[in-house]
């Protein structure tokens, strides 16, 4: 049957059709929807684990027990999972194992642009690289087969555009795969020396064998045209973008981008005098060819960063005369007023940053919806690196500030999702070598969800909503590990929030403030809206500066000065703007 699916849905479907049994993931764009789609298949145990490392380990456990397993994550998630991955890959895979990495050329929603094909090679994995939904589904099945045949974990590397793009897919039925069970074998599964010596050779041998099959596996496709001396080597979406230009060249499309078949590449190099590699991000295939001593061009024609659109490919090919006179094109997007993201109406993070901004303290940020505090309209957060990093960074900066005679307080914000993901260990580390002149205030934004990635559960969501089963009590946990100065604050009580920040930053020590309001979007919170009484409003703009989408200045009939206005359709009634108004001009509607 034909259906339209996104790449993410197609991967889930492929895993199901191939008899997959266990899937684990951690949410992150562009792969979130993969696991969400897998939830529809009863035969598969699936979970969003607490972080990517745990997700990978959960999937490893299933594979050791002879069940087909997958772990999916965003590209930077593989960094978190790298430790188990780099050793797991030395074992002889039992149940087929596929790691799905969602790469993000152009960084539409990521903090970096790392090309995880490098990771695949580093971890001695074969790498498949789909370009549309049909391929996403097919390659998942092929990857599981390869994983079992060559006893190696496989990497299915997919770019964000392919994850989110919909296209036609032929769906099939599920083929059950038996779970073979676990037979203890220390040589295979216990990676202690001396058992680690042999795997080094085995990894090399299995890769050589896989590269022999690369010579003629059907997913490496050669499309030859008569009378051309040029071959473009490409893969994934780039192949389909290239077809739009219909160039007069032969094309070698790699479904498996690593390992390459040396024999095939040499044959092609003998036949074609010009070889061009078309790939997004790093010169990966280009480097592989260069290592084989095959001259080729690539990154001198196409950018090493960002997405390559049809126009970018056209421009690159024009430089070598393959395409002619592609006219000067307009930019697809015109220069006009930008529209950066904003905290939702009623977002629980808003009052926290309004208070911090006014307190003029140094704020170390982390990753989540609250990262938006770093945008120009807030300018209320100064550093953001990777999930959980805020905790250690704050400690290190605090130590150096004090030794440097700088007594200014330091504030650090972290979401509950990020706290569980990788912040907790940093908190334990705070208890080591505490000094009297430390002045650190950690704000844990407990909005009961992993909001940024679409509102998945996290380890304390169950305290707020019955649909989730984990009810970790963050305050009790922190007290249990040894924090004494921990307090909870309802941040929609603006004064209380302000007081808490003032008190904690005003004294030395290490303190924790846990804010308690849930995410307005995820939990669809909507109360009676607020409105501005223009006769009372003095036009001071204090409310406008809370930067809530419905609030702006407006001309009222019969009043000269601009006065504040709240769009009633958009306001969800959190009351924050009313609390910052110095003259009580903002009231709740009846």
């Amino acid at each position: 049957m034909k259906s339209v699916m996104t790449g993410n849905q197609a991967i889930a479907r492929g895993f199901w059709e191939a008899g997959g049994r266990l899937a684990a993931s951690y949410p992150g764009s562009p792969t979130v929807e993969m696991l969400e789609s897998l939830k529809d298949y009863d035969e598969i145990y699936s979970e969003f684990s607490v972080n990517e490392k745990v997700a990978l380990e959960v999937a490893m456990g299933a594979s050791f027990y002879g069940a087909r397993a997958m772990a999916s994550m965003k590209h930077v998630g593989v960094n978190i999972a790298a430790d188990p991955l780099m050793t797991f890959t030395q074992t002889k895979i039992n149940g087929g194992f596929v790691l799905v990495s969602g790469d993000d050329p152009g960084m539409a929603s990521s903090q970096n642009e790392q090309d995880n094909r490098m990771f695949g090679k580093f971890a001695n994995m074969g790498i498949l690289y789909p370009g549309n939904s049909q391929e996403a589904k097919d390659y998942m099945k092929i990857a599981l087969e390869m994983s079992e045949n060559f006893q190696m974990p496989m990497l299915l590397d997919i770019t964000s555009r392919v994850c989110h793009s919909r296209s036609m897919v032929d769906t099939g039925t599920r083929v059950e795969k038996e779970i073979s069970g676990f037979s203890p074998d220390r040589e295979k599964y216990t990676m202690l020396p001396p058992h680690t010596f042999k795997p080094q050779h085995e990894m090399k041998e299995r890769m050589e064998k896989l590269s022999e099959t690369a010579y003629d596996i059907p997913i490496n496709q050669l499309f030859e045209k008569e009378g051309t001396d040029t071959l473009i080597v490409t893969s994934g979406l780039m192949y389909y973008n290239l077809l739009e230009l219909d160039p007069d060249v032969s094309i070698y499309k790699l479904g498996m981008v690593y390992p390459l078949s040396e024999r095939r590449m040499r044959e092609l190099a003998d036949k074609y005098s010009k070889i061009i590699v078309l790939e997004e991000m790093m010169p990966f295939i280009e480097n592989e060819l260069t290592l084989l001593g095959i001259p080729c061009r690539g990154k001198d024609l196409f950018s090493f960063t960002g997405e390559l659109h049809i126009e970018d490919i056209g421009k690159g090919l024009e430089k070598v005369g393959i395409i002619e006179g592609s006219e000067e094109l307009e930019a697809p997007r015109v220069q006009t007023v930008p529209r950066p993201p904003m905290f939702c109406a009623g977002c629980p993070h808003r009052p926290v940053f309004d208070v911090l901004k006014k307190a003029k303290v140094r704020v170390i940020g982390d990753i989540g919806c609250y990262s938006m505090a770093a945008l120009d309209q807030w300018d209320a957060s100064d550093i953001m690196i990777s999930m959980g990093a805020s905790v250690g960074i704050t400690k290190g900066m605090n130590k150096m500030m004090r030794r440097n005679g700088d007594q200014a307080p330091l504030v650090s914000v972290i979401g509950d999702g990020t706290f569980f993901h990788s912040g907790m260990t940093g908190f334990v580390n705070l208890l080591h070598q505490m000094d009297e002149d430390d002045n650190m205030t950690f704000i844990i934004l407990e909005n009961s969800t992993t909001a940024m990635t679409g509102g998945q559960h996290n380890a304390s969501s169950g305290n707020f909503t019955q649909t989730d089963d984990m009810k970790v009590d963050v305050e009790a946990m922190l007290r249990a590990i040894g924090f004494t100065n921990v307090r909870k604050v309802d941040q929609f009580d603006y004064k209380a929030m302000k007081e808490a920040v003032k008190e904690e930053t005003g004294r030395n020590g290490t303190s924790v403030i846990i804010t308690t309001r849930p995410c307005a979007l995820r939990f669809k919170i909507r109360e009676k809206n607020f409105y501005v009484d223009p006769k009372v409003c003095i036009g001071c703009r204090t409310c406008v500066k809370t930067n809530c989408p419905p609030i702006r200045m407006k001309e009222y009939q019969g009043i000269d000065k601009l006065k504040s206005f709240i769009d009633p359709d958009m306001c969800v009634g959190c009351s924050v703007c009313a609390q910052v108004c110095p003259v009580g001009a903002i009231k709740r509607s009846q």
Partner: protein
Amino acid sequence: MKNIMVAGVGGQGLVLATKIMAEAALKAGLDVKTNDVVGLSQRGGMVWGSARIGKEVHSPNIPVGEADILLGMEPLEALRWKGLLRKGAIVVINEKRTYPSSVLLEQAEYPEKEIGDLEQDYVVIRVDAVREAKEAGNIKAANTVVLGILARHMDIDREVWEEVLLENVPPKAMDANIKAFNIGYEYQ
């Protein structure tokens, strides 16, 4: 081949709009590829989606200068994607303005003039989709009004659109959505 671009503000539900287009194409026996923006921009930032529908579609990306129809779910967002349009393209503009941060903070002006000028080069259809949706009985059906206008300009049967629409909205919103679709389809 028809190239359709949808532009709007995070939270407006564009992903469902491109899904409906894709499923309508499938039912009509055509090939289709769509794009969507997923991630940080969904928090009130600029978001867009696209659908390419025809006999055989290679890339999901609309080549610059080849978009046939632009559905601007917000006027500024319609303006932003002008460069993608072919000459004489159809631009549907939902009149409800959602002001970006810099406009709310009075650091920039909303580009009313440039939005008005779109009429010089394109066939502009203006609609207050939010008001029409309220009329149909559900304020959330604004996108459906715009999809109705789109349907009018596509070679896919009206019934196909209605069928797909019903498959994609919750039961209690069905009536309002069909009404909203019809308002769009008949919109002058």
